[in-house]
């Protein structure tokens, strides 16, 4: 039998040694959270991912579960739970009847409440520029292309706006944030409604696409003069400026706790069956309301092998998970009592 060459032997030993070393290093440094070994995996909305990622260590500590969440966008989450690739899906866009059918016995539960901020990158210009729905729609339709356009100037008298070109950053993947944003644009602009419409993914007439809210944020960060939309937590994290949006009352509201809570008051009863709520562009009697607020939903199968764990986790999420220490820094608002009651009823229905 021919000998395997010495060099080959040394090489083989080196490879094995390196592999063992890397394996040892990664295991040695691994986080020491002791979990019972039960993994609860979920995927979907990037909108709610800031909050869910904050829950991960808390859930590990309080309940002993390892929570895994992958922010692949609301459509990805719906697909994942429909294919039972994960234990729960998360979507800001409520399921359509077809999607409910396809999911085969899923229930939709509102579990968090926040707002979509319209962020911009314009160095030297102040934060919280005024913007209204009609002008925003024109910008996203490509009809307003520069920052010193008269329409924007009219909303912001006294502000020195440069002639920089506006670059739109939108989502390239199926996104509940897009649904929320296009829902708003459709309600404030008949032109948008007829030409583009509402959806988790639409035929954007202009702009550059980014994957996930992180992708949109990255585009806004690296492009001067850009405008993008994402959950307000992303604007906070990246220190972006965002618009104060004009609501139906005529006031300019910001995507903070007050604005979101006021918007939430416009619909406090989840629709029977789907548990949907629509708080976009609330009517005049809510002067503080931020018009691009939204609930976000967790989608779980009614029948699951992990039912007791899922119930425990979801109960925790809609109660303890709404505590200020998790929600306040990210500008999420605890869900109101009326919604909590409906949510808890829905969670209790999950069975093995």
């Amino acid at each position, binding site marked *: 039998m021919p000998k395997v060459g010495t060099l080959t032997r040394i090489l083989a030993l080196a490879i094995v040694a390196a592999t063992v070393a890397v394996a040892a*290093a990664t295991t040695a*440094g691994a986080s020491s959270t002791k979990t019972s070994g039960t993994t609860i995996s979920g995927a979907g909305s990037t909108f709610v*991912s*800031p909050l869910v990622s904050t829950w991960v260590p808390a859930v590990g500590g309080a309940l002993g579960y390892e929570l895994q969440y*992958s922010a692949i966008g609301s459509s990805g989450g719906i697909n994942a739970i429909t*294919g039972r690739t994960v234990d729960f899906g998360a979507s800001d866009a409520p399921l359509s009847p077809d999607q409910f059918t396809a999911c085969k016995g899923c229930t939709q539960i509102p579990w968090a409440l926040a707002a979509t901020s319209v962020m911009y990158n314009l160095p030297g210009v102040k934060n919280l520029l005024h913007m209204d729905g009609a002008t925003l729609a024109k910008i996203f339709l490509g009809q307003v292309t520069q920052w010193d356009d008269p329409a924007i100037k009219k909303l912001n008298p006294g502000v020195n706006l440069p002639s920089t070109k506006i670059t739109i950053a939108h989502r390239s993947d199926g996104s509940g944030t897009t649904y929320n944003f296009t829902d708003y644009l459709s309600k404030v602009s008949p032109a948008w409604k007829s030409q583009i419409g509402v959806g988790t993914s639409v035929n954007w007439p202009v702009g550059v696409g980014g994957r996930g809210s*992180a992708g949109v944020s990255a585009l806004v*960060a690296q492009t001067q003069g850009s405008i993008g939309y994402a959950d307000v937590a992303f604007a906070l*994290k990246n220190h972006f400026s965002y618009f104060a949006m004009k609501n139906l009352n005529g006031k300019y509201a910001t995507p903070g706790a007050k604005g979101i809570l006021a918007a939430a008051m416009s619909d406090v009863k989840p629709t029977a069956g789907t548990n949907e709520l629509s708080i976009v562009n609330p009517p005049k009697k809510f002067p503080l309301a931020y018009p691009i607020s939204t609930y976000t939903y967790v989608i779980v199968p009614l029948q699951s092998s992990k039912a007791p764990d899922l119930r425990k986790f979801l109960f925790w999420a809609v109660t303890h998970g709404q505590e200020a220490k998790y929600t306040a820094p*990210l500008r999420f608002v605890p869900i109101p009592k009326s919604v909590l009651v409906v949510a808890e009823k829905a969670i209790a229905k999950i069975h093995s």
Partner: protein
Amino acid sequence: MSSHNLTRAALRSEGLPRRRAKNRAMEALAWLAAAVAMGLLVLVVWSVARRGWSELNLDLITKTPASGFLATGKQGLANAFAGTLVIVAVATLMALPTGILVAVYLNEFAPAAVRGAVSVALDVLNGVPAIVIGIFVYGLFVLGHGQSALAGSFALAVIMLPLVARSTMEVLALVPSSLREASLALGIPRWRTTLSVVLPQTVGGIVTGTTLAVARAAGETAPLLFTSSIVGTQLHWNPHHALQSVPVAIFELSESPDPQDHARAWAAALILLLFSLFASLGGRWLATRSRRRIATSR
């Protein structure tokens, strides 16, 4: 270009000064092309090296990503490195024996027509884009069952198979038939001859092919995006679950707005780049060496 004209012009030294000038011009262009090409390629490597080097630290492979959106503090990509180790190892376990068997069949058993057909099929398989393979494995294994590192390994194994098979075939062809004939003449059965006499001669070539295949597989992103990308931040080794991998981690970090994420991406990219370069260089060096050795041992 008529060689007749060429010869005539050359023999008669027609228009020599003009031809010499043209020659100098073309040589200059070639130098320029080489400089531009090399410049571009070196630029890429140098950029990655410069940005990745300053961010390289042990935390990268010992700490997991932070969970918590606004969390700061030490974090790394331990779960990605562990995942890549597992996924590539399992993929090699799938592709290596299969590739060797395919090569053995083609070289030792197959009639010429079959050999031609399978060779074509292997070449075609080699040219299928990785993203198409990702969708294929998604439809085959992930739909209805969930993502897993095993599905990812299968996708990578499909990519590795033609490389392993081709390298093994090349070295099998180099083993002199006299060796086989001598073994058979001694009464050793075909199968034993192949396994115990012929294959051991090819170990060098197989190692080469595997090294190159591993280098390629470790850097593939697209197939893993569809099969093993829904992951958490904790460290896992179980191939039945979806595991994070280094290329997918770099891809995700590259789309993030956070400069800290970019720093980790550059560092991980440098490690991946160094690994690919060394494996590739090493593989080709081994190839030349083993080919020389087999050739001189005849």
